[in-house]
């Protein structure tokens, strides 16, 4: 395979990928279908921003966020069912059960652990230690600007954490399990070794204790943009959207079996961060995963990080197996 030169890198030398927006298929069919899949994403984003901007205080609370989040996931699952992007990514009973198991872990035991260590405690510490009176300049900014800044700062941190995971072996051990997924579906973002789910911090809900409306509005970017990273639906994403935001196309390339392609598109929401740091590649891939697309069992997903780490440690520091002859 020759691959395609993108800047100084050759993408697609190991596995097939499609590079360049002009080469990516578009939604075809009735006028309504084309319009729907062109405007669905912007309509949801701006609709949700408007809703949370104007929602009365009695509605603007975490329980409504959770309710809308679950409803939106069900809607996207329905879209996946009726309009799959690739048949090779179709949701099976086993895939759905596996994905929901990880979603369940995130909502239960990981959240519980988070109460003691991790971002839950960090947020509480910040809330107690912060000199809030020096922070009024921020809370006095327009709500949408506050929301963008919160989402951007969070994603900027995620970008470097994610890039670090692909470049520093101990972090890669934790993140690699997520790269063994062989297809993208709406709940696949939750699949991975729990150490990673814990690292990236599922519990940003803690922030809702302060700046509630701005934090909820920031969360809209996560729900109405980042969610599409793992989805088996094709959209005619508008040009401006794919320049600013991460898309399924970008993220499928990141999950590609091609090594160089997987080292691109690290941001979760704002792909322009990748553009700034030269890690953005516009394109898509259908063949995903590691080791030629080997699907890991849940048991291996749980243990891989530790067993691989142990193997590496033994190789590096263990005694050599060569027998020393007795004199």
């Amino acid at each position: 395979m020759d691959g395609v030169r993108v800047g100084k890198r050759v993408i697609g030398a190991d596995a097939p990928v499609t590079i360049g927006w002009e080469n990516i298929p578009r939604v075809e069919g009735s006028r309504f279908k084309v319009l729907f899949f062109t405007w669905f994403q912007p309509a949801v984003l701006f609709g949700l921003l408007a809703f949370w901007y104007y929602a009365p205080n009695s509605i603007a609370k975490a329980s409504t966020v959770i309710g809308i989040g679950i409803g939106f996931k069900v809607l996207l699952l329905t879209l996946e069912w009726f309009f799959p992007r690739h048949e090779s990514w179709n949701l099976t009973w086993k895939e759905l059960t596996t994905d929901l198991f990880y979603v369940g872990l995130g909502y239960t035991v990981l959240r519980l652990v988070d109460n003691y260590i991790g971002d839950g405690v960090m947020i509480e510490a910040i809330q107690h230690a912060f000199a809030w009176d020096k922070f009024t300049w921020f809370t006095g900014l327009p709500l949408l600007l506050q929301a963008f800044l919160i989402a951007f700062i969070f994603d900027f941190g995620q970008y470097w954490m994610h890039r670090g995971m692909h470049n520093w072996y101990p972090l890669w051990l934790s993140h690699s399990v997520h790269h063994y997924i062989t297809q993208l579906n709406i709940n696949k973002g939750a699949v991975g070794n729990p150490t990673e789910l814990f690292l990236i911090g599922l519990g940003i809900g803690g922030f809702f204790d302060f700046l509630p409306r701005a934090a909820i509005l920031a969360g809209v970017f996560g729900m109405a943009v980042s969610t599409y990273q793992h989805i088996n639906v094709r959209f005619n994403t508008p040009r401006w959207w794919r320049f600013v935001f991460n898309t399924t196309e970008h993220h499928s390339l990141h999950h590609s079996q091609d090594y160089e392609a997987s080292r691109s598109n690290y941001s979760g929401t704002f792909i322009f961060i990748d553009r700034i740091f030269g890690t953005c590649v516009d394109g898509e891939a259908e063949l995903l995963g590691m080791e030629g697309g080997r699907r890991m069992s849940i048991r291996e997903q749980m243990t891989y990080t530790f067993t691989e780490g142990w193997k590496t440690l033994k190789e590096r520091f263990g005694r050599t197996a060569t027998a020393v002859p007795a004199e």
Partner: protein
Amino acid sequence: MTARFFDWIWHIRGSLALSPEQTSEDAFARLDPLFRETGTSHERTGDTLTFRKKDPAAQDKMSVFDGGVLQIERDAAGPVLRYRLKSRALLFCFFAPLLFLAFGQLTVVLGKMDTPASEEKEKEGKDAKTSPEATMNPIDKWLGAPEPEKKDDKDADKKGDKKEEAKNKRFSPTSAYVFAGIFAVLYLVGRVLEARLVRGLFRRRLAGL
């Protein structure tokens, strides 16, 4: 009590009548592609085929099974394919509700144990720095966004209740119970669906479709 009494939980058994003229050779030849998927090994002895799967691909039509035996028997009515398939995924899903119920119970227990610490925090909270009154940007006022909630004495009274509410949320077992329910439904759906799907798959293959 035999194992058969409860192994239906993760075993799927079934049979399909073959056409009278269909030989074992022909039937297994038609089913053969199903056992040539990635991670699948199989062996055939006479009228019996045994297979095993390790890390099957997500789109492998039989990915939910880890192994099984297919046998062609001949009785008075003609040849019959009998199969017995084993699925650890079904077994796992059967026990998943118990796992989530355990998480729920653990949450309740830890919530009870957390009480003294939260009282301490409440004491600390009195000295802690508090966020200033939220101000509203003129642009948001002009656009008609709702005013942020004012902090008054009533709120101060409510503060204790809110802390208690926050603690209840942190240690709420509700989501664990919801997921226990989801996995119970998923098991029932999977047990029925996968049995029907594999039966349909064998039938179509044997008919050459």
